[in-house]
C-alpha cells in the first residue's frame, strides 16, 4: 500500500529545498495576514489576563450590538439583492438585448472603475446628489415641489446607505455575471426551441437553473462586500448609524464598549459572517463552472 507512489521515490531527497522558494511569501502571509486574524479569533475567547472564556461572545448578544449586526446584515442583504437584480438586468440587456455592440465594451470598462470607486469619495458623490442640498434633491424640490426629506428619505439611514452601496454592487455584479451569461450556449436555446419550448420555458427550465449557482454565489459575494465596507459608511454617516464596522472602528479608536476584548468578539463576528458568505460563493462557483466553461 505504501509503495503506491512510484514517481515520488527518486527525487524525494531534493524535495525540502523546493520549499525554500516560497519561504518569503509564507513568512509574509503568516505575519501580516494569518497571525493577525488568528490573534482576533483567539482573543475573542480570552479574558484580559489570558484565560479562556465565552463571555466576550456572550457579550455580543446585548441589544445594542445585536441591533448593529442586524442593521448591517439588512443593509448587506438589501444592497446585494438589489445589486444582483439591477446588475443582472443590465448584463442581460447587453448580452441578449440586441443593443448596439458598441455599448458593451464601455459599460464593462465603466463597471471596472465603478466597482473600485468605493470609500470616502463615493460618500461625497452621493452627498452632492441626494444630500440635503444635492442636485437631485434640489431638482425635485424646485421643479415638482417634491421633498425627499418629507417622504422620510435620509441619506444617513438604512435606505441611504443601501442606495450608496449599490454604486459599487451593481458594477461588481455586471463584471461577474456577464461571462456567465456569455457561457449560455446558443445550442441550448436552439435545442429547447426545436423541442417546442417557449422563450419563458427556456429561461425557466434551462437557462435559469444553469445560472442559479452563479447568481446565488454572486449574491453571497456582494453580501460580504457590503458587510465589510467601512470607509463609505463612516464618511457618509460619521458615527450616527450604528452598523458593525462603524462600531468596531470606534471600539478600536477608543474602547467605546468598555471592554477591550469585546472588540475581538465583534471582529470575530465579522469574520464569521463574511467567511460564511464567501464559503457559499466559492462552493457555488465551483458548481457553476461545470456548465459555464
Amino acid at each position: 500500500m505504501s509503495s503506491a507512489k512510484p514517481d515520488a521515490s527518486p527525487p524525494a531527497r531534493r524535495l525540502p529545498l523546493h520549499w525554500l522558494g516560497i519561504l518569503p511569501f509564507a513568512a509574509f502571509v503568516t505575519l501580516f495576514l494569518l497571525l493577525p486574524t488568528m490573534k482576533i479569533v483567539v482573543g475573542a475567547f480570552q479574558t484580559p489576563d489570558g484565560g479562556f472564556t465565552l463571555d466576550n461572545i456572550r457579550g455580543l448578544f446585548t441589544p445594542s450590538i445585536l441591533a448593529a449586526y442586524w442593521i448591517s446584515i439588512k443593509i448587506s442583504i438589501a444592497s446585494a439583492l438589489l445589486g444582483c437584480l439591477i446588475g443582472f438586468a443590465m448584463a442581460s440587456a447587453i448580452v441578449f438585448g440586441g443593443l448596439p455592440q458598441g455599448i458593451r465594451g464601455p459599460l464593462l470598462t465603466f463597471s471596472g472603475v465603478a466597482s473600485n470607486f468605493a470609500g470616502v469619495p463615493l460618500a461625497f458623490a452621493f452627498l452632492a446628489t441626494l444630500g440635503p442640498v444635492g442636485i437631485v434633491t434640489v431638482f425635485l424640490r424646485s421643479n415638482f415641489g417634491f421633498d425627499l426629506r418629507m417622504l422620510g428619505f435620509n441619506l444617513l439611514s438604512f435606505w441611504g446607505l443601501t442606495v450608496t452601496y449599490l454604486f459599487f454592487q451593481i458594477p461588481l455584479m455586471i463584471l461577474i455575471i456577464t461571462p456567465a451569461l456569455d457561457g449560455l450556449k446558443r445550442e441550448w436555446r436552439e435545442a429547447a426551441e426545436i423541442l417546442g419550448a417557449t422563450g419563458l420555458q427556456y429561461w425557466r427550465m434551462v437557462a435559469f437553473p444553469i445560472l442559479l449557482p452563479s447568481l446565488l454565489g454572486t449574491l453571497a459575494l456582494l453580501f460580504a462586500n457590503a458587510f465589510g465596507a467601512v470607509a463609505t459608511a463612516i464618511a457618509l454617516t460619521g458615527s450616527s448609524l450604528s452598523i458593525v464596522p462603524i462600531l468596531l472602528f470606534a471600539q478600536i479608536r477608543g474602547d467605546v464598549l468598555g471592554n477591550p476584548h469585546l472588540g475581538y468578539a465583534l471582529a470575530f463576528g465579522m469574520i464569521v459572517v463574511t467567511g460564511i458568505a464567501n464559503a457559499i460563493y466559492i462552493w457555488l462557483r465551483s458548481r457553476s463552472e461545470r456548465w459555464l466553461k
Partner: protein
Amino acid sequence: MKKIWAWGALVFGLLYFTLPLIGMTNFSLKMRRGEYSFDAYGKVFSDPRFQETFTYSVMQALFTIIFGVLLVVPTAYWVRLKLPRLRPVIEFITLLPLVIPAIVIVFGYIRLYNTSSWLPLTGSLTGTNILLMFGYATLALPYMYRAVDTGLRTIDVATLTEAAQSLGAGWATILAKIILPNVLVAVLSGAFLTFAIVIGEFTMAALLNRPAFGPYMQLLGANRAYEPAALAVIAFGITWGCLGLIQLVSRFQRSAPPKA
C-alpha cells in the same frame, strides 16, 4: 418588446450611475455663489495638507508596488515551476484578504505589533509606515497574485527556465531578465490596481494614525462643503486613470506576438 426592456434596464442603470457623478462635479464647481468656478479645486490643491497626504499616499503606493512585485513574482513563478500541487493552497491564501475585512486585519496588527509586543512596529513612525505598507500589500495581494499568475500562464515557464539555466543563468538572472520582462504587462496592471487601492484606502491609515490621503478626505468631508466634492472628482479621476492604463497595457499585450 425585448429591445424596449433592454433599453429600459440600460437607461435606468446609466441614470443611476451618471447622476452621482454629475452631482459631485456640479457641486464641486459651485463654490463661488451664482456661477461656476474652479475655486474648490484651487482651494484643495493649494492646501498644504492635501499635498502632504497625497505625496505620502503616492510614496506608500510606490513602496507597496515594489514590495508586492518582489514578493509575488518569484512566488508565483516558483509555485508554477516547482510546486504546482501547492497552487490551490496559495490561491486560496491570496484570496483571503477579500474575505477578512480590512478593519479586522488592521485590528490584528494593532494588537499584535503594539509597543509592548515582541515586534513593536507601531512604536516608531518608520515602523508604522512599514506596517501600513505591509497592510496595503496584503489588501492588494488578491489582485497582484491573480494578475501575475495569469501572466505566467501565457509563457512556458519550464522551457524558459531550462534554456536560461543551460546558458548558465542563476535564479536572480532568470527572474529579472527572463520572467519579469515576460509578465511585465500583467505586473503593470496589478501595479495600477494597487495604486488605485492605496490612494483611496481609509481604514488602515486612519486606525494606524498615518497622514494618508483617505483619512484627509474624510476629515475634509466632515468640515467643508465644496472641497470634498472636488476631492471626489479628483479621486474618481485617479481611479479612472489607473484602470484606463490597465486597459492600455493589456491591449499592448494582445498586440504582442502570441506564445509559441
